[in-house]
């Protein structure tokens, strides 16, 4: 922060931006290393240290080196992008560092072995934008991820950050800002899709002097991690969005509620908060406008239900996170009884670009009722896993096949699960559904926070339903009976079916229970809890029937209904499975087909995982 002093006015901010832009040579080579959680797991921080060491060793300290937020393409990490050309390397290891510095940094040449090769066409992609995974995306929320160092406010300001705040404070009235947000058609990205501008207006109209805003970063849906990436990779965008929102609503205090499991997000947000306070972008009299606003971070402590807004507020107040009935809605009576506006991380991050570029621009993207872009986490049985941002209305086919590269091992697509535990499974035959709030609802699912979990022929839909219901049983806060008891009973029935003890009539019972829980539960957790069961029953009833009547698991997942066998014709006797088996159930001399002792087998699948010759088959059998 040596170069930056307190910004007392809009002009100060612009002057600083000018200085930062001028100091930066757009043609200079710089190295950006993905330091998102995925790439860190691949060892990207070791890579960063190695680059720094070798650059110093070679007297190249002037080459800028950045640890950025998540680039999205987690599958291929660690990712390294060399600017200004944006040469894209994936799967980079420490041993590659010297070559990259010598060839790419010094001479501008690409190293072919590190470039992305399209597995379908075989085409080599030099630049990030050419990689099919990125080529079809449109990045608004993720505009800065991968470009800037999230721990540097100068980086953010240099790419135009806080420009929207300056515009809002400089010339716009609160009503005008709300008008813009309303006109843009932005809807809440947390799941329900409530129009953001309308919510802001409701909160603004409350007569109370004291109001609060909250950023919901309790990304609880398993399978979704976009909020994490935004908080980690572009924390100032969230703060800027919140400051604009607070100004429009008339709040002076904000809270960011971050999940317990996201320590890096907490640390980057804390860093951003300190920087913003230091330069006067948070605190009293922001940019000389007379507007005061500050933000505190609240760490969650591990409770899925805290994603529900009334539960979240209870948690912020330092109590157990149990929901309460609505109305009154938080905009009327929220935190400590004051009007409170809650939006999700991605929603807040959408605010600055809308204010900066205008509502017309934003409204031109997306579909009739769902505007703009949406970030999805494309995970599960898909080749290219990671975070993607596409326009609303992009079809599932484009997402799974064009961006995702298709199903893992080219197996057959069975379904795409959206919306987390409150969502549902969209079957393969609806793959051409354009993804927006309305279309997903029509298919029986919801947008949710944007998790897209791809499931292939080897995924058992009854097991998936059981998985979600078990999750919700564990996370149910226990306050209302339909959710506490109903979900428990549904889990019992599903466990029974997966265990090969399903009874005729179980399906009807499940449906009856599901409808009761849906209608009678207190909060969103309970009322959406039956969705995974209802959609799988709707689209995959045959799988339920196979489990109950034929005692067969078509996807070969449910342990009670499968046996593992060695296929002697395929077994080469390599002994890998013999070593892998934790209970010594497999035996046999080298180079001869092995024997699997069924009486010892615990069906852990370890042999199946290590067999390179497809010689171990999970065969469905009849259970009397």
């Amino acid at each position: 922060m040596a170069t930056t002093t307190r910004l007392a006015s809009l002009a100060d901010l612009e002057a600083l931006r000018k200085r930062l832009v001028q100091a930066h040579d757009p043609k200079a080579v710089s190295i950006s290393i993905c330091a998102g959680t995925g790439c860190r797991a691949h060892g990207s921080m070791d890579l960063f240290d190695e680059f720094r060491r070798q650059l110093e060793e070679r007297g190249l300290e002037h080459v800028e080196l950045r640890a950025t937020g998540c680039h999205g393409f987690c599958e291929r990490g660690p990712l390294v992008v060399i600017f200004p050309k944006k040469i894209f390397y994936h799967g980079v290891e420490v041993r590659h560092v010297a070559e990259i510095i010598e060839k790419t940094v010094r001479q501008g040449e690409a190293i072919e072995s590190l470039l992305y090769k399209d597995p379908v066409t075989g085409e080599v992609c030099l630049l990030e934008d050419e990689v099919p995974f990125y080529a079809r995306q449109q990045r608004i929320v993720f505009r800065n991820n991968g470009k800037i160092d999230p721990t540097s406010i100068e980086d953010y300001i240099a790419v135009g950050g806080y420009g929207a705040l300056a515009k809002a404070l400089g010339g716009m009235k609160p009503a005008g800002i709300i008008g813009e947000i309303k006109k843009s058609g932005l809807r809440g990205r947390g799941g329900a899709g409530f129009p953001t501008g309308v919510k802001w207006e409701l909160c603004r109209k409350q007569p109370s002097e004291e109001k609060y805003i909250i950023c919901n970063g309790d990304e609880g849906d398993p399978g979704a991690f976009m909020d994490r990436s935004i908080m980690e990779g572009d924390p100032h965008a969230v703060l800027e969005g919140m400051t604009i929102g607070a100004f429009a609503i008339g709040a002076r205090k904000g809270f960011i509620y971050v999940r317990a499991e996201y320590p890096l997000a907490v640390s980057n947000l804390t860093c951003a908060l300190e920087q913003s306070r230091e330069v006067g972008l948070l605190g009293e009299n922001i940019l000389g406008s007379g507007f005061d606003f500050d933000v505190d971070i609240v760490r969650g402590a591990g409770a899925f239900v805290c994603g529900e807004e009334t539960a979240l507020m209870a948690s912020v107040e330092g109590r157990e996170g149990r929901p309460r009935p609505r109305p009154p809605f938080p905009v009327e009576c929220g935190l400590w009884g004051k009007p409170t506006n809650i939006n999700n991380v991605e929603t807040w991050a959408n605010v600055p670009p809308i204010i900066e570029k205008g509502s017309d621009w934003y409204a031109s993207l997306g579909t009739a009722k769902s505007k703009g872009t949406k970030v999805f986490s494309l995970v599960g049985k898909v080749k290219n896993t990671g975070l993607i941002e596409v326009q609303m209305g992009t079809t599932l086919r484009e997402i799974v096949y064009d961006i995702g590269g298709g199903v893992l091992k080219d197996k057959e697509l069975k379904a795409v699960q959206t919306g987390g535990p409150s969502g549902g499974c969209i079957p393969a035959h609806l793959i051409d559904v354009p993804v927006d709030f309305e279309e997903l609802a029509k298919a029986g699912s919801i947008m949710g926070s944007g998790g897209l979990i791809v499931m292939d022929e080897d995924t058992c839909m009854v097991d998936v339903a059981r998985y979600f219901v078990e999750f919700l049983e564990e996370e149910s806060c226990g306050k209302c009976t339909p959710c506490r008891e109903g979900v428990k009973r549904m889990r019992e029935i599903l466990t029974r079916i997966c265990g090969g003890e399903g009874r005729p009539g179980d399906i009807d019972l499940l449906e009856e229970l599901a409808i009761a829980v849906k209608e009678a539960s207190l909060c969103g957790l309970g009322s959406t809890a039956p969705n995974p069961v209802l959609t799988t029953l709707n689209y995959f009833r045959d799988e339920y029937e196979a489990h109950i009547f034929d005692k067969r698991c078509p996807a070969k997942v449910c342990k009670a209904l499968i046996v593992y066998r060695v296929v002697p014709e395929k077994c080469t006797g390599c002994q890998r499975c013999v070593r892998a088996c934790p209970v010594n159930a497999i035996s046999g001399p080298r180079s001869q087909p092995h024997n699997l002792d069924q009486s010892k087998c615990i069906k852990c699948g370890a042999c199946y995982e290590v067999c390179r010759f497809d010689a171990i088959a999970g065969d469905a059998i009849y259970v009397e």
Partner: protein
Amino acid sequence: MAVLSVLVLETRKKHRDRLRGKLGAAGYEVRLAESGPALISEVAAARPHAVVLDIDLPGGDGLHVLKAVHDAAPDLPIIVEAGEPTVEEAVEVMRRGAFNYISKRSPVETLLHVLSQALERERMEAETKEKAREHKIRTFDDPASLAVVDRILARHHYSDSMLISYMQDVQQELRYLPQEALRFIARRLNVSLPRVYGIATFYKSFSLKPRGKYVIQVCMGTACHVRGGGRILESFERELGVPAGETTYDERFSLESVRCVGCCGLAPVFIINGKFYGNMTQEQVPRILAKYE
């Protein structure tokens, strides 16, 4: 190892001398008691590691002596010898707290074997107790821990709206939330203990039990589930011999299942003390665990 002492009450001189010789040769320190009352006072004065008691005391006092010794020292192993063993007597003797019941006509090796069993049991019980006592010290009486807690509370001026945050910091320092820490927090912030306890049990990240040196969190998010996260968890359970949610006996590893750590691109994933492991298979589990031994 210190010499183990055995206190013997045997009425027949010949057998008594034989026992003294054999036990002495086996390395035990042998002390002799003259009578029942002498045995009882001897146990009270200097507790031996084990007692060998002749049940055929004059006047049929054997059972009374047995009960008296057992009441005075419930953990002390008492091996009862009988000249004419009967099933009825065996039942009665065991009921009164004997460790074992053997015939005087059995070879001395039998007695030596039973004795070593008894002493092994006593050693293990003592160890368990020692361990429990260590916990107790850490749990209830350690003033240093309470000073840590107080420092944390002072950071935000003992404001009760920061309760959850305080508890997270305390857990980070002490690796779990000891009962005394919860009581202390409640007293210091002037909030009810049920409220503190409610929070500690409502939120999943809090642990009321000491956690191991290494905390293994196996992700059970949806992406990890469909890519075999459940099998990874089972494989840890097998390797460590404890179910999810438990800590190994040596307090080295705690095994936990968590719902999505937000690293779905690399499913299945687990974390050991903050370090992420992605794209895992069951085969890799023992190898990775070995690094933390």
